[in-house]
């Protein structure tokens, strides 16, 4: 809200960050681990007095230089550019707080590139001992760059006390600093070993190829093994919410985890089979496959790390859409649009709901959702929802799905957003259709309006257990006789009947009506499922089974909670699904 939004509705900024970041980290970790690999590969060549191995190291150093200096360093600048474009507020906050961490990283970057050039251009010209020392200067400065960036990006996931006091050192040495540093160091060397394995596949001399293949495979396997305890340590220090999401609550993470596991398994198979056991199996296609496996491991790790901090971009401080957590209360009471800088519709009038809704979408939803794009398409995500359900959903979005930031603004602003999504994007009616007055759902609204301030359904249910519908109806005009605190119910005759229906149904479930079941479905299920899909899912299940199913939805998926309506509503919804299923058949 403090900065303009670079709005590419079909692309989405998140996609661009992911694209640049995953490719960058894959090369930048190689730039770190590769330093160590080069030193020990050169030492091996010297120890074995093998000019062929030294020639391999020199060629590998050239490949290393071309990849890390050009692609690695420029995409590093690219990440900086893209995060400032996609989330300038978060970038600004981090830059201002950690400016000297970044400045120190710049110094190490300078030493790193100088050492890389000296290492490559003096290969064979410098005495070996000094050349190895240059290699160490390179590796240490590259690793220090990793250490510094690790501290800064770690704070985005596990801010610890920094979230409260913004102290540089407390933020830098955040709770995940050490496990993340170990994990990243091992993954960096593992990736470097894969690149070494790849380079070895190009060597014509069979003896050298076998020797360097086995050498690389050993490095890959050892670091792969060391990654596992550090990953467990890493996960153990995550805050509860992030931990829960990593363990399966987040659909993004659940979708990404298999890629990482496949990558690890692939690497194990390749490095053991075509590395240690039969190095001769190392060929260009196998080596490329190993790089893809390493990319899958690295990419899924980064993706999971990014997803784990949702709904925040900086955990507990700033939401993904750049809104500070500390501003929520004020914005909810004063209105988002009035406080946002880069919006044209500062006030909601009857005429600008659509335009204001679009601006709210751009400012609050676009950080994660595209329109018709491949990444979190809002049209696909909301296609089953009506305007009424969307409005309700928007107001409870964070409670329903933790990984989404809460909607920030007034109720009218929520309606404006719902108007834009339902009307502007989905082409649906944007007037909340009045509830059919013969439905239980409408009766429930009456109950909430007139009774719920003092009574809960659970309290009243036993009291009405032995009363007939007629007896309940007869109570309404004389409520003041039951208690001085109550007044006679003043609704219309139709409302009296509806409320009596509702209270009677608490102990006498009525036959489910199509309309009320449909509304319950819309309210509780439609944000993720369409009716046909549900009909297919519940095919062959009877009402009793469905009631049980609705009460244990969390057993089916971590993303779902057990049905949150009353027991009666649960029965009605189950009946609705059963009847829809029969109708379908």
């Amino acid at each position, binding site marked *: 809200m*403090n*900065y*303009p*939004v*670079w*709005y*590419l509705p079909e692309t989405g900024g998140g996609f661009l960050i992911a694209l640049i970041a995953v490719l960058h980290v894959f090369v930048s970790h190689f730039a770190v681990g590769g330093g160590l690999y080069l030193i020990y590969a050169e030492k091996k060549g010297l120890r074995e007095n093998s000019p062929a191995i030294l020639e391999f190291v020199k060629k590998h150093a050239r490949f290393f230089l*071309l990849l890390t*200096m*050009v*692609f690695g*360093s*420029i*995409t590093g*600048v*690219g990440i*900086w*550019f*893209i995060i*400032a*474009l996609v989330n*300038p507020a978060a*970038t*600004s*906050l981090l*830059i*201002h*707080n*950690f*400016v*000297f961490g*970044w*400045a*120190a990283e*710049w*110094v*190490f*970057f*300078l*030493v790193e*590139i*100088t*050492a890389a*050039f*000296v290492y490559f*251009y*003096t290969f064979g*010209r*410098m005495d070996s001992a*000094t050349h190895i020392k*240059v290699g160490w*200067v390179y590796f240490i*400065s590259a690793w220090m760059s990793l250490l510094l960036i690790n501290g800064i990006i770690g704070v985005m996931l596990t801010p610890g006390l920094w979230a409260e006091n*913004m*102290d*540089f*050192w407390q933020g830098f040495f955040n709770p995940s600093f050490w496990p993340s540093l170990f994990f990243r160091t091992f993954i960096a060397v593992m990736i470097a070993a894969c690149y070494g394995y790849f380079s070895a596949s190009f060597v014509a001399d069979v003896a050298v190829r076998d020797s360097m293949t086995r050498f690389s495979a050993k490095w890959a396997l050892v670091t792969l093994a060391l990654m596992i305890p550090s990953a467990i340590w890493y996960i153990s220090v995550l805050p509860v919410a992030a931990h829960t999401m990593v363990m399966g609550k987040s659909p993004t993470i659940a979708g990404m985890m298999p890629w990482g596991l496949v990558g690890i398994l692939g690497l194990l198979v390749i490095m053991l089979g075509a590395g240690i056991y039969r190095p001769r199996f190392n060929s260009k296609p196998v080596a490329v496959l190993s790089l893809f496996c390493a990319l899958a491991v690295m990419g899924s790790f980064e993706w999971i790390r990014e997803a784990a901090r949702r709904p925040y971009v900086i955990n507990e401080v700033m939401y993904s859409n750049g809104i500070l957590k500390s501003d929520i209360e004020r914005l909810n009471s004063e209105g988002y649009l009035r406080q946002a*800088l*880069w919006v044209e519709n500062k006030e909601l009038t009857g005429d600008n709901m659509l335009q204001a809704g679009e601006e709210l979408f*751009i400012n609050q939803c676009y950080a994660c959702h595209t329109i018709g794009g491949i990444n979190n398409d809002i049209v696909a995500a909301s296609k089953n929802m009506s305007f009424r359900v969307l409005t309700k959903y928007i107001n409870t979005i964070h409670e329903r799905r933790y990984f989404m930031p809460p909607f920030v603004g007034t109720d009218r602003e929520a309606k404006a957003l719902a108007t834009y999504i339902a009307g502007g994007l989905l082409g649906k009616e944007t007037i909340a259709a009045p509830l059919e007055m013969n439905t239980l759902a409408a009766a429930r609204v009456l109950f909430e309006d007139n009774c719920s301030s003092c009574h809960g359904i659970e309290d009243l249910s036993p009291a009405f257990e032995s009363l007939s519908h007629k007896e309940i109806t007869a109570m309404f005009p004389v409520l003041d006789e039951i208690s001085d605190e109550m007044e006679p119910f003043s609704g219309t005759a139709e409302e009296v009947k509806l409320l009596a229906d509702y209270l009677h149904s608490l102990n006498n479930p009525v036959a489910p009506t199509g309309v009320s079941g449909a509304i319950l479905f819309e309210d509780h299920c439609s944000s993720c499922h369409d009716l046909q899909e549900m009909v297919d899912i519940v095919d062959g299940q009877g009402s009793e089974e469905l009631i049980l199913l609705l009460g244990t939805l969390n057993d089916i998926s971590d993303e779902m909670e057990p049905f949150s309506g009353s027991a009666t509503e649960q029965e009605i919804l189950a009946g609705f699904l059963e009847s829809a299923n029969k109708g379908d058949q």
Partner: protein
Amino acid sequence: MENIIIPQADVIPVAWGWFQALLLLTFPIHLLAMNAMLGGLAIGIVQHLRGGTVEKKLAHRIAVALPLVIAFVVNFGVAPYLFLQVIYGQFLYSSSVLMGTFWILIIPILIIGYYGAYLYDFKFNSLGIFGPFIAIIVFCLLLVIGFFFSNNMLLMSLPERFTDYFSQKNGTMLVYDNVTFWPRYLHMMCGALAVGGLFVGVLGRFRKAADIELADHCERLGLNVFLVFTLVNVGLGLWYLFSLPHSQLMLFMGGNIGATALLVVALFTVIGALVMAFKRKFWLSFFLGVTLVVFMTFLRSWLRTDYLSDYFSLDQLQLVPQYSPFIFFLVTLVAGIICIAWLVKKSADAFSTP
């Protein structure tokens, strides 16, 4: 003022003067490296196309140096860009978003240009006629990057243009229609060509012991290029100066004693540099040329401060002191310089050993 949108700035950890000093210290280094890259490459292309033994040798020397220079241009760009974000972030982030599509294009363009430079270096002999062709493409790509940078640096100084965002949310705003844009851009690029001459002279000096003919050629050519393009750039500079809005122009015309004095000193430096170049005094020309670049960055900073003076001044930045990370950075910087000195020495030893 009513329709001006300026984001809220974040707090800074040390007094703004430190950041301003670090910005003014690091930006000229980036600029000099950029000039060496762009100007050096242009000279290399012309030499390569012209043919002749010594010309081709020089083109090859430049081709070998180019990837290294690009690496340092990028590296020395990181530091000023960082410090600029700290003190002018609210303007820079906004302008970057407004031209986001072009801004992010810098990255793929630079990657292609950088790989082109390596190709030109590693395959200099085998590429034949394609060599200069590739070098020209790289040069054009670098000019495009400069064009985008000039747009952003100007746009961040023009918050009155920020409301154009509402009709262009896809990040495609550029400000080359601003009356100061073209003289500003051309002044920068022409300056790069001039300083590129000095860079070529230095390249020759490094090779003096091994190849006296090449060194003489480099020095003669470098000084000629510096002389001619500096003269042209004086004209462009005057065009730029008089294209400035009246209040900014007056800043250098007595409105502000410091700014005016600095401009006068810079003009004397230009004259001195031209005379020295004419007299073939290489190191004096070099020293005055470098000094001139430093002065120009100071003038540029002064101008930006004045552009934004209606909306913002650096003393408005809120300070929440945290000095220990700053000390950590300074210690790191000293250690880094020692390391680099060691690396350079060892490298020089290695190359001096037959």
